[in-house]
């Protein structure tokens, strides 16, 4: 069977940029790739659990995601 042309409802085209670039495909999970930039020293990294400030997420009891 030949593909039928899908209907295009009016006024539903995605905003500029929303489907372009990195998040380009539906039905896929994306995590933005980390870019290597500044790092903490080994001692501070050990205490915090990471040397990367951009990956450091603190938690206090009572916080909800």
């Amino acid at each position, binding site marked *: 069977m030949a593909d039928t042309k899908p209907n295009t409802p009016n006024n539903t085209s995605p905003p500029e940029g929303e489907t372009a670039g990195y998040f380009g495909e539906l039905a896929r999970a994306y995590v933005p790739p980390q870019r290597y930039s500044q790092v903490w020293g080994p001692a501070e990294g*050990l205490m915090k659990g990471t040397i990367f400030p951009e990956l*450091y*997420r603190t*938690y206090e009891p009572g916080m909800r*995601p």
Partner: protein
Amino acid sequence: MWIYEKKLEYPIRVSYTNPRLAKEIITQYGGPDGELAASLRYLTQRYTMPIPQAKAVLTDIGTEELAHMEVVAALVYNLIKNATVEEIKAAGLDDYYADHDKALYFVNAAGAPWVASYIQSKGDPVADLHEDMAAEQKARSTYEYLIRLSDDPDVTDALRFLREREVVHFQRFGETLNLVHEWMDSKKVF
């Protein structure tokens, strides 16, 4: 092959004997979202990963989870090693004690033994990496519940470290998923 470092990945200390807290934390030793499940899941799934970067990430993180299993074991043991039988009974750990004394065993917080059905090894790299990302989030949330349950600031400190590692691992699995998708796109494999 592994090389063993005779030290913990993160130094631990407990403030006092606390079998109640040990009973809760042991779920990260042998529970569904614990470190044994994590390490075995990743070290098993790596064989069917299609690209060397994915095999390497699973090997690295699976290895680190073994180190976390050791940290959790040290926490649990230090919380119970000096407990009297009366303290163990008061904490509700007497059913565990009846079978294991103060030995470490792979159970969840309610005493159910570890089972292989906690993990999956699907042979599909996209499915496996989604499971791995979910596993990191489940472990993160378990550590948050344990932090809420902890009344020992020294134990909480170690739980915070382990929780943050889950956040980092999620990022690495996400980046690995991107690489696998790129590889699939380049191969036109569907």
